[in-house]
């Protein structure tokens, strides 16, 4: 755990002013952007490809490969996905708020590599402070000539527009984000044919990259891709930002190397369970991911392959930890309610199925469950995610619907007895939810604006 910090180093070293352009330039900022402007498109794509940088939005797809798929039509666009809405995920918030120039430099590098002259930063609507910080950073960069016409005195033009979302989780899905950016309803597009690399924003080739992904780029150029690959463990490259929340003593964002175990993450990094309670379950990669339980997964290495083999995903790095006081029916209901609320309503199985699941779970939690309800939950889930496998075989347009099924899979796999206790006892066997203290984890290291 002595790996170097990459994307959070500056904010750790200069917590008071890491978001300012002066601090950024004093610590080596915008050097790589200038360098990139002197490099060819192929050199840049090749460097990123060989660095092994993986997309940090959840899909963990090779960033360089994604770039190389960009269709030749022009204009092409770059959209930085800062619509961080997955429950439990708050890493991009910190990167946006505390090191916006790091992302802007990544935007410049991406733009040069992909002949992009118009980039958009789409920030979640509930992130006013990060958005203000990014907007201020963009303005500073414009006034220094780092953005706009002929950046850094070259003939390369780059406009950057900061856009705030309207409060929809689904706009984190890249095609829904593009629709939203175009002023349309935030509904995912059908793939094929609407792959962003071919028909994206305004039907032109578009790269959609996560904030953390883009924030890595200047460091890759600085270190060189060889050095960057040395950080890798198995097929996982670079570092990984975990947002740990829930019933741990030290919730917060942690930039970590790969290869540690869940036990180390929960008990060492995050300080162990609150009140030294018993660990009941955790969600390893955001609300969409099937849950892990201590009996099976505590000593598993945190790698994307090992997580996938165990039937879940690392996703966006959101780890939600639950102790033994947690009613899993209530937890599942809360998660399913979230997805039902956030369903765009476009496709039938998600629109109707997620709400139905929520209703059944609420009924069980209220003590009105029937013996047939568990099989019914599973069969309704099967209508959204055929076979309830992982990765899901969706009947839906996008993965939101199957995401709502993940908590149901957890109930089936590990908590059937608890469900049946609700049904047979006619009430929830666990104590009512305690008045939770507001956890300030997402503000870890945060200062005054």
């Amino acid at each position, binding site marked *: 755990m002595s790996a170097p910090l990459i994307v959070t180093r500056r904010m750790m070293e200069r917590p008071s002013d890491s978001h300012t352009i002066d601090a950024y330039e004093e610590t080596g900022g915008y050097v790589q952007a200038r360098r990139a402007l002197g490099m060819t498109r192929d050199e840049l794509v090749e460097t990123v490809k060989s660095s092994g940088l993986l997309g940090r939005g959840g899909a963990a797809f090779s960033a360089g490969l994604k770039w190389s798929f960009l269709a030749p039509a022009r204009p092409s666009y770059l959209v930085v996905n800062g619509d961080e809405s997955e429950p439990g995920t708050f890493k991009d918030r910190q990167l946006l708020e505390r090191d916006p120039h790091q992302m802007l430099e990544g935007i410049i590098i991406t733009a040069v590599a992909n002949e992009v002259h118009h980039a958009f930063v789409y920030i979640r609507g509930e992130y006013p402070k990060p958005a203000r910080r990014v907007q201020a950073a963009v303005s500073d960069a414009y006034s220094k000539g780092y953005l706009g016409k002929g950046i850094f005195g070259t003939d390369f033009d780059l406009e950057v527009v900061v856009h705030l979302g309207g409060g*929809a989780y689904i706009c984190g899905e890249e095609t829904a984000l593009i629709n939203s950016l175009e002023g349309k*309803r*935030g509904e995912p597009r*059908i793939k*094929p*044919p609407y792959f962003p690399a071919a028909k994206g924003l305004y039907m032109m080739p578009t790269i959609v990259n996560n904030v953390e992904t883009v924030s890595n780029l200047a460091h890759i150029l600085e270190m060189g891709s060889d050095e960057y690959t040395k950080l890798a463990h198995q097929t996982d490259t670079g570092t990984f930002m975990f947002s740990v929340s829930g019933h741990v003593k030290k919730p917060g964002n942690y930039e970590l190397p790969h290869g540690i175990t869940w036990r180390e993450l929960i008990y060492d990094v995050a300080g162990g369970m609150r009140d030294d309670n018993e660990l009941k379950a955790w969600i390893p990669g955001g609300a969409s991911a099937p849950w892990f339980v201590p009996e099976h997964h505590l000593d598993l290495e945190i790698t994307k392959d090992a997580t996938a083999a165990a039937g879940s995903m690392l996703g966006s790095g959101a780890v939600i930890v639950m102790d033994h006081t947690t009613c899993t029916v209530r937890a599942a209901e809360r998660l399913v309610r979230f997805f*039902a*609320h*956030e*369903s*765009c*309503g*476009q*496709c*039938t*199985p998600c*629109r*109707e*199925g*997620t*709400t*139905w699941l929520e*209703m*059944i779970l609420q*009924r069980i939690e209220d003590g009105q469950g029937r013996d*047939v309800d568990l099989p*019914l939950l599973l*069969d*309704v889930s*099967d*209508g*959204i995610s*055929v076979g309830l496998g992982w990765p899901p*075989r*969706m*009947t*839906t*347009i996008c993965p939101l619907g199957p995401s709502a099924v993940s908590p149901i899979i957890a109930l089936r796999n590990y908590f059937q007895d608890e469900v049946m206790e609700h049904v047979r006892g006619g009430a929830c066997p666990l104590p009512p939810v305690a008045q939770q203290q507001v956890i300030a984890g997402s503000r870890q290291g945060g200062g005054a604006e």
Partner: protein
Amino acid sequence: MSESINPTVEPLHVIVDGQEFEVAPGEMLIKAAQDNGTYIPRFCWHERMKPVGMCRMCLVEVDSPRGPMLVPSCTTPVAEAMVVDTASPTVKKAQEAVLEFLLANHPLDCPVCDKGGECPLQDQALSHGPGDSRFVEIKRHYEKPIPISDLVLLDRERCILCARCTRFSEEISGDPLIEFQDRGNGTEVNTFPDLPFSSYFSGNTVQICPVGALTAKPYRFRARPWDLTMVESSGMFDTVHPRISIHASQNQILRIVGVDNDATNHGWLSDKDRFGFEYLRSEQRLTLPLVRRGGELVETTWSEALDMVANRVDLISDEDGGSAFAVIGGAHGTNEDAYALSKFARVSLRTNNIDCRVDDAMAPHFLAATVDRALISDLDTADTIVVWGPDLKEENPTLYLRVRRAAQELGADLVVIHPRGTGLDDRATRKLNYRPGGGFALLDDIASGKHPDVTALLVADRVVVIVGRASAADDPRLAESVAAYVRSKAGSVRILPLARRANTFGALDMGLAPDLLPGRVHLGAIGCANLAASWGDIPTTPGKSTAEILEALEQGEVRCLFLVGADPVNDSTRGPGWVEALEAAEYVVAIDLFVNDSNRVADVIFPALGFAEKEGTVTNLEGRVQKANALLPGPGQSRVDWSILSDIATRMGRPIGLESAEIIAKEIAEVSPAYEGVTWDLLEWEKHDGVVVPISGAQPINHIPVALAGAPPPKSKLALHVARTLYDDGVLMRHSPSLRKLAPGPVVHLNPADALRIGAEAASAMSVATKDGEGVFFAVIDDDTPKGVIYVPFNQPGAVPLGSDPAVRVNPVAK
């Protein structure tokens, strides 16, 4: 979409449920399977709209290297060697799940739902559903039903959110006034606040709704679909003649639905075509012949009325010969009726004073037989489309949809030239406004290179030019000049002249023009031998046009006028002149459904059969002959036009020898070269979409130099633009209450700047005066009307006719 496989493209081979077939590349799986006999259930997919893959009903399994994949067949294009299973256990499970999801919140009110019995949700629940619901929770509830326009109601509880209606309004009709609102389980279709779904095409959404969520007021709770009798026919409210199916019960039309076809309307209809049938059952329909006795029109017997007319006509004929007669009308009926009228005028009345053009006034040869006449389908492949004529959305709504599709979906450049904003402007590559009466001046400007961006668009491979009379102030010869000019510029130009009355082109083809004989044969050339054999000796000097008949009536030169389905007082911008002329006429005979403002001075009115009450053929603006069919008896003793004319002719001793509509159709085919081989049998059994009759001996068209007599008023003065709207005070609309109330009424449109200058406020009363009339109109202030121009819709309920002269005075009415 349903184009056959292009022979130059290698077909792909697909195996669906074990059966291999060839498909054109680019075809979607759902359509390929359907065309080869495998029906995949669906709700959101509609053949005439872009696929969206939303309902998920059409999921099928396609083999892939990673095993079978569930994909929506409506958004999955076919690929070579694709192996598809549409009924695997996984597919069936998914389809049952989707249906159970859709039914979870769907009310079980099928017994009182209009859609019951013809409902895709009902049908597919039966064929592909689980047969049972496990949903025990409380269903979604909304206020039932809410009116979203004057004609359409929305029941959001029944809605399955397939987005067919919202996509239609955005993708097809171009007036996206309904949209999804909210999200997830709370998603609903609705209108925007304070903006009703006031689309001219709203009824289409009712037709394509796969459940009973959208219903139309005229049909609501009127019938069960299995009780309806149906017949296919042609819509008779514009010159496209959209293909329709008429549904009736107990001798009343209850609804009209569009029939899908490639040739004309793709299944879409304007609300006028769809809902414009109320007049047929109006209490005001004529049921017995009326004769004037003691100054009053009174009912009488057919024999008395026919004898009266025959005797009086005989008398006038003996005294003054054929030149004392004139005939106006015939453009609303069938070709058979038009042919009978043409033959009656020439053979029995011995006159060529006959005209079906009440106000269009473009040259008959240009309208009926222009060189290079376009097919409607030529729009689909055009590089540039020029529309210089009426606002198609108002006057030719079916054609408007086709032009919009060409510009919006098929990439054609569109040039729109009109005195003010039109329904197509949002899709126009270039739009030019001009002052009413200034059409020729603008054409000269374009020809002399003052609008290079327009001329650049004309230099294209395939150009279609749609021309008609854009404004009452325009010289009617402008259209032909525009066509001639465009034709001189581009590679291949196809021309589509427009007329207002629905069967104008059929009537012209039957010779209802002063110098045309049936088959678009010029009078002077003495037609063909077949015609001479059938018609005998007929007058050979060209007769008078409608405008000339008006003058001849005033001067007493024409003594007897036949008005056949014509109302020039209302239907012509020279209406006030017609009131005087008709009062001056010695003897007026009318054949009509109603007493109207013109024939109310007639001496005899015969009650006629209308739309859906008589069988025959009709010819549309591209020359397509289609069958129009009968489903209803007419009211009372009303009769079909041709038989009335035939009876008069017989009683005059100059018979026209016509004994049935089908016999007339055979005679048309014999005597008019263009219609050779066009038989009812052919149209009934083989060519449902009709046949396009060829143009032989096409007339050259000319750029007609015109002294700019009708030039617009000086720029410092306002210029009046009078044009028609879809709904107006025409006699059929007057007796169709649901549609008549949608007419804009007496309004005057002004640009905001002009309104400010004159002192007009929205809806304030304005006095509008021309040399022909003066009246009160209510101000509508809009940006569609350019500065210096005011627009008054023609023939509105409660409006004073203003004539066609663009010189106008507008003042606020003192309060």
